[in-house]
């Protein structure tokens, strides 16, 4: 194993591989910054160029681009409330309020360092768990996935700081929107009104650009001024404060990374869920949970570490069994096939050097991205001090063009504007946009796995399988834990005051 790891490292430290990885990282950061485009787009665009290269150089470019999109998309989420990719949506919840408070550099510093540590944990996990992961994956089936989606919905209670009823309404709205289009189970066209465009359903990335970015532009025009409402400390100082925050909350980083790994390793579970679930977990376990949504750095660290670790997790089923962990991993799988490498047993037995090269690529690409990110943070933050009169005419066209570029459909531009107006109204009347986005992400997953579970195990499927039952209890525990903890704390306080 050590020999294979050493050979993998040597193959990567070839100047050609390093050059193409750097190109990939730069490309990934640029793609990540563009609204709506993430790792999938980066890999799909770079794939044709990589096929003519040596396997390690090609993988360095592909994975370098993929890893760098995570930090790239976090930049716009934190600074402009524009999710660069749908998986970065959770970064908007606390990253943007931090920017408004003048702590954008701190948030970027924290994101870059969390991304590095998450990525490293992901790479180590990938090395250690390839041999044992099969057994874990085989134990999980559609009922467990259903319960996990249900757990994701429990996060809603955290976001609904104002009215829980409004939060649930927004989630219901999101859930119902996710059902627009062809029902994958029965093949029925639902809520399409005969439109071919709606048959595909609403693209999540397009809706998110509308809900968060376009609505923010509308708001910015009304309020005027710049995004930053107050500057707290010097920018470079803030970047290092962000880095320090990650080490202060190291337990959260480890927990979030493990969560990202777990979600990444599950085939078919979208990465967007990872960030949202990590945010929920951070909010539930934090000592300052009341500050979540107003600019708590823990709300930046958790989703970023999860997103970075997700990559290592996603590679486990891809490399180990030839099952892609997500869409981007499907692109990587196609690259393997073109290179003449068959993932699965053949890869683990005959191409371990390539497996370890991949591990090292993740490590080195994360280091390059983080160093670049930390150096660029103080300059990037200056953009947020520009007046709205300059930001709106530049950012609004980029948002609309970004929505169009996702699938090249002009009707997506109409969708983005409609959801921009809806997002503004929801924000004004305190219907959580985050709850709506969570509902949309989890809607289809919830429905699909529920149907399969009922068909396979009957109506009471969550009680008949031991793993499902345990996960179900975990979900109940997650929902009720804050209430129980609050009750115990209140009782203890009452007892103490009674004694005094």
């Amino acid at each position, binding site marked *: 194993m050590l020999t294979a790891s050493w050979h993998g490292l040597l193959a990567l430290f070839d100047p050609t591989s390093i050059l193409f990885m750097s190109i990939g990282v730069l490309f990934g950061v640029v793609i990540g910054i563009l609204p709506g485009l993430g790792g999938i787009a980066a890999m799909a665009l770079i794939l044709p160029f990589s096929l003519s290269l040596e396997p390690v150089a090609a993988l360095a470019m592909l994975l370098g681009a993929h890893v760098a999109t995570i930090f790239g998309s976090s930049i716009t989420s934190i600074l402009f409330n524009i999710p660069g990719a749908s998986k970065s949506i959770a970064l908007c919840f606390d990253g943007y309020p931090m920017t408004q408070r003048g702590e954008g550099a701190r948030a970027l510093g924290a994101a870059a360092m969390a991304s590095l540590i998450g990525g490293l944990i992901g790479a180590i996990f990938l090395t250690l768990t390839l041999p044992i992961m099969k057994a874990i994956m085989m134990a999980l089936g559609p009922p467990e996935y259903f319960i996990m989606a249900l757990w994701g919905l429990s996060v809603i209670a955290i976001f609904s700081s104002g009215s829980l*009823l409004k939060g649930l*309404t927004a989630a219901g709205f999101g*859930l119902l929107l996710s*059902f627009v289009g062809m*029902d994958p189970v*029965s093949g*029925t066209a*639902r809520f399409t009104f005969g439109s071919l465009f709606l048959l595909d359903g609403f693209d999540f990335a397009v809706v998110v650009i509308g809900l968060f970015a376009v609505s923010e532009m509308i708001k910015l025009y009304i309020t005027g001024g710049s995004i930053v409402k107050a500057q707290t400390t010097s920018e470079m100082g803030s970047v290092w404060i962000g880095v320090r925050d990650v080490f202060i909350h190291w337990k959260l980083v480890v927990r979030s990374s493990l969560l990202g790994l777990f979600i990444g390793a599950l085939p078919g579970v979208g990465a967007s869920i990872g960030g949202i679930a990590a945010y929920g977990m951070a909010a539930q376990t934090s000592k300052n949970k009341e500050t979540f949504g107003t600019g708590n750095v823990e709300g930046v660290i958790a989703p970023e570490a999860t997103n970075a670790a997700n990559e290592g997790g996603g590679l486990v089923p891809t490399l180990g069994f030839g099952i892609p962990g997500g869409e981007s991993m499907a692109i990587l799988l196609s690259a393997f096939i073109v290179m003449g490498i068959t993932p699965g047993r053949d890869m683990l037995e005959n191409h371990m050097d390539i497996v370890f090269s991949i591990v090292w690529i993740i490590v080195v690409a994360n280091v390059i991205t983080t160093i670049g990110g930390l150096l660029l943070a103080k300059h990037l933050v200056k953009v947020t001090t520009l007046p709205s009169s300059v930001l709106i005419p530049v950012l609004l066209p980029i948002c609309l063009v970004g929505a169009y*570029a996702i699938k090249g459909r002009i009707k997506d531009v109409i969708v983005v504007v409609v959801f921009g107006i809806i997002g503004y109204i929801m924000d004004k009347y305190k219907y959580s946009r985050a709850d709506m986005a969570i509902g949309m992400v989890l809607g289809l997953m919830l429905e699909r796995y529920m149907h399969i579970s009922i068909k396979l195990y009957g109506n009471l499927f969550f009680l008949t399988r031991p793993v499902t039952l345990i996960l179900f209890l975990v979900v109940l525990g997650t929902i009720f834990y804050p209430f129980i903890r609050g009750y115990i704390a209140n009782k203890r306080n009452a007892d103490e005051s009674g004694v005094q």
Partner: protein
Amino acid sequence: MTKKTANNIVAVAFLLFFIAVAILSTGFGPRARLVPLPVAIGSAVLISFQLYLQNTKNTKINLAIDAGELLFGAKESKDSSGKKKEKKENLLKKELVSIGIVVSFLALILVIGIEPAILVFVVGYFRFINKAKWWKSFVFGIGTLLFIHLLFVQFLNVHFYKGILEYIL
């Protein structure tokens, strides 16, 4: 329009949406409506409860009374209510203008295509909203267009929509 009325309008809009979805769902087969129908009904019940709460809940009485306010309350409150009304009208006007700008930009894209629309929008925004000089407006317009063209067309190979005029002409 009071805040309460506006809140009610939004809640009623949500309620109507949920009712419409529930009605439409009944037209699907049992498997296709298994999740949407209960979600729509559940959401309709929740928003109805929200509507009930926001219209029946007692507003808290403000006990922090200022002595000056107590003495000259009538006149001051009239002034402040006048200011408030003016502020509200301004806000509504700004909201309408802001949404109007976004919708106009969308209409431009649909009619003349993405790239010409960007140029017209950015130049127009700088010239008529920011009151910048013509040459400055054009510099920003061409700069933004160039940046977007390089990034999306040259770099990402995206084929931009040319507008309905292309089909008409």
